């Protein structure tokens, strides 16, 4: 059973389109994240939600809008896609319990904007 699953695995689209990436975790974790990994492998946090509430929102264009319908899901919607949005997007979850924190990552969504 996959702990953190995200779909789709690959996404190829044209500039200007709107797309969504879905993420679900079955670990019972309270906190979920979206990370962006660029072509140089640099991993940068975009958003973090705790129990459906936004707690971290880094300097991300407002074309990116996360949605958390419940604490097991954190979807990422991207409007008006640009070439620079091409990257691998990783969903992750964690349970901030002292002594047991660690991130569980999804398998990533490789987004290519043409």
């Amino acid at each position, binding site marked *: 059973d996959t702990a953190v699953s995200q779909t789709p695995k690959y996404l190829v689209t044209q500039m200007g389109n709107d797309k969504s990436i879905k993420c679900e975790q079955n670990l019972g974790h309270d906190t979920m994240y979206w990370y962006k990994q660029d072509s140089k492998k640099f991993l940068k946090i975009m958003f973090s939600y705790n129990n459906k509430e936004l707690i971290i929102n880094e300097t991300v264009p407002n074309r990116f809008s996360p949605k958390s319908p419940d604490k097991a899901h954190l979807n990422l919607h991207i409007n008006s896609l640009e070439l620079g949005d091409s990257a691998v997007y990783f969903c992750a979850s964690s349970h*901030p319990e*002292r002594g047991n924190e*660690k991130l569980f*990552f999804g398998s990533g969504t490789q987004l290519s904007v043409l």
Partner: protein
Amino acid sequence: AQSVSQHNHHVILSEAASLELGCNYSYGGTVNLFWYVQYPGQHLQLLLKYFSGDPLVKGIKGFEAEFIKSKFSFNLRKPSVQWSDTAEYFCAVSNYGQNFVFGPGTRLSVLP
């Protein structure tokens, strides 16, 4: 704000060589420290973590790391690398699991 730096962008070693990857962090409070590994085409997986206690922590696949509080460092080591260790290695810091900050990563290439 927390930040993490890693000393090397790309390390190339021959099999059986010893490995040490440097990691330094900046944060004034109590932190938890992690090393994650990303094999080619895969997602990040936890190698090891430090929360408290013995500053020398052992992880999977023969890796270990030493936390030196006075130097704000958490270097990763392995006495003898294998070709299968070729991957990207990320140091990370968190404060109680709610904000994980990653270093820029170090690419390790092990030559057979």
